[in-house]
């Protein structure tokens, strides 16, 4: 029994260490707030960060598949502008706003995926260029002044509670759960890992690598669109560039959670604490009233140290054999 447990632990993929770091981050947060904060504030933090949580899951998927998507932030901004413009405060238009903005998100993911997969282009630059194009697109569309507003009914996804559970948090957790199931329990998910770790082997094993790549970029954009909608529900207004900061944050959260850039390594179970660690850190710094310069410094140091700890323990330094 014990050996069995031991063996399970040795080859376990659950990133326990990240949860350890999360615990540390929570303690630090409470310590900084001198234990005055009520634990329900933590639930609120989960609620408020559902957009980041979801977009980080999206980013993790792409990283697992061996890519990267620097256009998620722009997609979120686009969804914000499109959905508010289309809903224009009218509850009857919610469906229209949601479908059209998610449709655009899917289209962007499709273009990203096709260019990356079909023409074997580096996703780092392609998605970066895509972000610029999207930005230009919504400037042209809005002429600089975003229009429209949200019907109150729509804001339920950010402000609503089911008893003690915030709906936004629920959406986040269900996205996590659903994609975990897909990633670990379906052939498709396996194919994502295989394609990410070695596209050549994947191709020679009859895995439709092009389809996998395109679909993952589409899924990523779709999730970014969803995150953008929830963010919009939070903000309640259209505003250019609301999603921009989410690109780098989603990558940082994925990596803090143990996902690697080389593809095929990482889990969604790590991304969840990764996101919370990032935002708790941010809140801790606000509470401690650290000025911007100090925030910048401590954020840099803490992320580096956390990823460093994570990496170091995961892969003990060893000179490799042939």
């Amino acid at each position: 029994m014990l050996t069995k447990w031991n063996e399970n632990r040795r080859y376990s993929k659950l990133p326990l260490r990240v949860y350890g770091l999360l615990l540390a981050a929570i303690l630090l947060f409470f310590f900084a707030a001198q234990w005055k904060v009520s634990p329900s504030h933590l639930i609120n933090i989960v609620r408020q960060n559902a957009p980041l949580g979801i977009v980080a899951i999206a980013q993790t998927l792409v990283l697992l598949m061996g890519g990267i998507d620097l256009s998620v932030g722009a997609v979120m901004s686009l969804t914000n502008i499109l959905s508010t413009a289309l809903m224009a405060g009218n509850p009857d238009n919610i469906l229209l706003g949601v479908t059209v903005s998610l449709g655009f998100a899917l289209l962007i993911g499709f273009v990203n995926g096709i260019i990356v997969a079909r023409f074997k282009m580096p996703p780092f630059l392609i998605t970066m260029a895509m972000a610029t194009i999207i930005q230009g697109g919504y400037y042209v569309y809005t002429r600089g002044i975003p229009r429209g507003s949200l019907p109150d009914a729509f804001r339920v996804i950010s402000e609503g509670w089911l008893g003690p559970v915030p709906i936004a948090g629920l959406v986040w957790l269900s996205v996590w759960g659903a994609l975990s199931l897909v990633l670990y329990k379906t052939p498709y998910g396996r194919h994502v890992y295989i394609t990410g770790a070695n596209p050549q082997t994947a191709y020679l094993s009859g895995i439709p690598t092009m389809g996998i790549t395109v679909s993952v970029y589409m899924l990523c954009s779709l999730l970014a669109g969803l995150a953008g909608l929830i963010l919009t529900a939070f903000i309640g207004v259209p505003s250019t560039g609301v999603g921009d900061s989410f690109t780098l944050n989603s990558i940082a959260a994925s990596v803090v959670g143990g996902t690697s850039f080389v593809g095929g390594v990482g889990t969604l179970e790590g991304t969840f604490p990764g996101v919370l660690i990032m935002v708790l850190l941010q809140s801790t710094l606000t509470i401690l009233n650290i000025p911007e310069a100090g925030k910048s410094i401590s954020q840099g140091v803490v992320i580096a140290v956390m990823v460093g700890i994570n990496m170091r323990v995961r892969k003990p330094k060893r000179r490799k054999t042939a």
Partner: protein
Amino acid sequence: MQTNQNEVILAGCGLCKQFSGNPVLTGVSIACRRGNVLALVGENGAGKSTLMNILSGGLMPDDGRLEMDGEEIVFSSPHAAKARGVAFVHQELSLMENMTVGENIMLGQEPLTGRRLISQRALHREAERILAEIGYHVPVERIVSELTPAQKQMTEIAKAWAGKPRVMILDEPTSSLNKTESDQLFRFVRRIRDEGVSVVLITHRLEEIPLACDDVMVLKDGEMTAHERVDRITRDEIICRMVGREITNTYPARCKALSADLLLELRDVSLGRELSHISMAVPRGSVIGVGGLEGQGQYELARALFGIRPFTAGEVLVAGQPARIRSPRSAMRHGIAYVPDDRKLEGLVLPLSVGENISMLVLKQLCARGLLNRRKTEACALEGMESLRIRAHSHRQPVASLSGGNQQKIVFTKWLQFKPKLLVLHEPTRGIDVQSKLEIYELIRSLTAQGLSVLIFTSDMLELIGLSDRIYVLYEGAVSGQLCGEDATEEKIMQLSAGLGNAAGGGEVPHV
């Protein structure tokens, strides 16, 4: 064998090594002597590469010590070992794909001009000289990624030799070489031995041992089980020490008559300028071998069959029906499986586990209600490991941490799970130990008995002769002749390989 002074250059005493708690070497001692060639043999995963890594500074032993010229020494890095004259040609090639052959060979010792800048001209001239010294020709200005595996292997050896080492360790250097090339290598090895270099040669082709080696050392499960002069030990004894029991018959009996029922037929297929008008027939339940010198179109033919770079002309018939094979997926739909020659790049997914690699082609079958079933996937993985005796601690271990031979077996198992009708094997036993080889041969035979056909591309002459029911020999992208299993001899094959047709009814239309 004129033995020279028995002076020991590099020695390891009582070396021990564990990986995550699993002992791989337990108290092995080894001595590399001046002017001596030591053959190191053992099953896959016996610890040969690990031992050599320790000798050459790639790994630190957990216990035991190294001595050089009688003094204790600690190599902190491969660089340190190299500086002391210990060169190691790794089992897995370690060339810089984006550099030229010459730049690779001279890496770290580039000739400098007066202004301390690299002289590219002198560099390539020098590289050419080193290659000539070994007795090979490889175009020195070619980018490495464009080379054949054999050319890469030679470049690798030249690179090691460029540093004028006193101890040269070669880890399975012949696994990607054909007979002529191997012979050339052995001539070189004998020559540098006579110059006083100490050579350690790891190989799974036991017949090569007498050709070049003075001593044999056998490893089994991380322990030394024999250390003898070559002339005092027989091949069977070596095998016995390796596996712990006696093995006699190496090649299983071939099937008597080829079936008239063709599973695959190639009619006049061509591929650009690389393959021209090839016709071949693969009867059901047979093993068809394809031989020839390196680079005569074997690589292209194997890959075209699997749809990676499809034929540009001609007809392919699968089970009598014309088939359009445009991609690996369509090849798989026709029941074709392909075990590629480069396992790391094309056969495995290194960060994933043994089980995930084995089951990757049959995921659909392992599902229950659309979701992967844990019990089924585990059973699949365990059965796959069992069938080829894959040596791993657990099916959840990452494939990257397995020994080379075991990795090769995983690629093999993976494709067997797929239950193909035609198995295209490209150097299937590269780096596999004798016993496992035998097991694979037997497996191939038992599969053919059940109606599976096998098309095997190999540079191992004995394997080609021993296993094939019919042999096609390629020369410059065309079939230069075919031989029936019984008639095949090394000479005939060599003749055909050199483009000297008509050796044995070569060129006849391949019908049964």
